[in-house]
């Protein structure tokens, strides 16, 4: 999307680390990937424990992006 006067803002730099967010989105927005009961963990079906695990993975991804882009902000 072009910014005002067609000149992109130079202040917000792109970082390849942002791709971690894309991974986060694609996995969780594709239910066929995790809509199954097996394998279970401590008796909890895959559907439930995988999504809970993905909360933690996403938090780690976000922390990584934060640390890796901190300098350029």
């Amino acid at each position, binding site marked *: *999307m*072009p*910014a*005002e006067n067609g000149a992109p*803002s*130079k*202040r*917000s730099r792109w970082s390849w680390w*942002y791709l971690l*967010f894309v991974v*986060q*989105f694609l996995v*969780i*927005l*594709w*239910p*066929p990937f995790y*809509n*199954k*009961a097996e394998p*279970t963990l*401590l*008796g*909890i*079906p895959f*559907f*439930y424990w995988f*999504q*809970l695990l*993905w*909360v*933690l993975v*996403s*938090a780690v991804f*976000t*922390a990584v*992006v*934060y640390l890796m882009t901190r300098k350029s*902000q």
Partner: protein
Amino acid sequence: MPQVNGIALVVFVLLFGFITWLGFAAARWRRGDLDQLHEWGLGGRRFGTVVTWFLVGGDIYTAYTFIAVPALAFGAGAVAFFAVPYTILIYPLLFLIFPRLWNVCHKHGYITAADFVRGRFGNRWLALAVTITGIIATLPYIALQLLGIQVVVGALGVTGTGIAADLPLIIAFAVLAAFTYSSGLRAPASIAIVKDTLIYIATFAIVIVVPIKLGGFGKIFAAVPAQKLLLAVPGAHTTGAYGSYATLALGSALALFLYPHSMTAILSASSGKAIRRNAAILPGYSFMLGLLAMVGLFVIAAGIADMPDYAWGFKTFKNNFAVPALILHLFPSWFVGVAFAAIAIGALVPAAIMSIAIANLYTRNIHREFINRNPTNKQESQMAKTVSLIAKLGALIFIIFVPTKYAIQLQLLGGIWIIQTLPAVLLGAYTRWFNDWALLVGWAVGTLAGTAMAYASNLATTYTIAFAGYSFPGYSALYTVVLNLLLVIVLTPVFNALGGGRKPIDETVPADYAA
């Protein structure tokens, strides 16, 4: 009729008394001049990473969420778990967009999303659309918080007829109104710390103790009927339950931070850095919400719905009684008091922030824009305090006199309406390319189409689009915001040409968005 649970009630009242004191004492916390709107309504933008964590967490994971998500899991099963992807998706958005918005709002003294839109696009009518949408979407949400209090007070066995039935709610409301009036955003910020500590303790206790009492997770999930355990696999020519699940998650995530109360909590952070850090630590709440969604399934396994002791509660509060009933059934009275207090206090925090957000919107974007253009600081903050009282009073009257189902339906419609401000607010943080009138038309069409879809689907969250022999059931908010955005993109060059290249002034410059 239920018996009054004495010990639980005493613990409940003590904890409630404590946070009442805290709410008033908060006026002196990180002291500022409460006669200025940004001090009263944004806590002076002084909250660091930790307080912001409690405040935003207490604000967006509301008491209603903690009651309604497990209630949905209890009633409908796996589909309720969409709350987990939803809360996963919100944090990249928070990380990428909100530090920019915080910077520009800080720079120009904006305290609402509508302030930003007014400055960015220079169109008071577009700002008014954002304001009105925000106020109307938030009011039923406050009412639902009071519903959360109603459920736990009922579960404590405190009942009555006529005015006595609503007395606990009126007391809670009076407390809430008084400390919000006197302390502003500092009150919910300090109370959130207590409330979230209680919620975390209660949730982890439930998730550990209940499976032990019920014989392990394996046994619990074995007791859940197969059609509730997983999403239904879609048949041919439809995206089925998968489509609904993913669009509900994405649509809810996009809508969340457009709500005025989310904006208020985020803008009160002390820096863009505090916001980015929070994107990494706020998922702590998402994890807890996921655990609570599973608790809804525990209730199925415990077979509580068929027990005569709880028939009254389920009859009165429907599935919303699921979690309170489980707690009553399996825990000692003192714990019941702690857990129920956590839910009730958990209702006060977002209700306070929501009423402050509405007050900020009215004061800045309606009163100052259209009625008195040059208020003094004191007049402005006094106006906001008064409006916060009116907003809460409206919610109280609503929940007492209007059937609960209307509050729930209005809150559902609120999600569809608030998402229509996305192009102006969230995309506006990145680009000024859009024409302001095109944004207004997109907003109007999206709002009408979303409302029509909701009514066509009998006020369900999802609407099925049929196309070329395929059907796509999905969240109407997401469908209509796409329509809204396409319209804005098509109409922008048209309106620019009609306007002869004349464009309202953008009072922000690119440097304002950087730290």
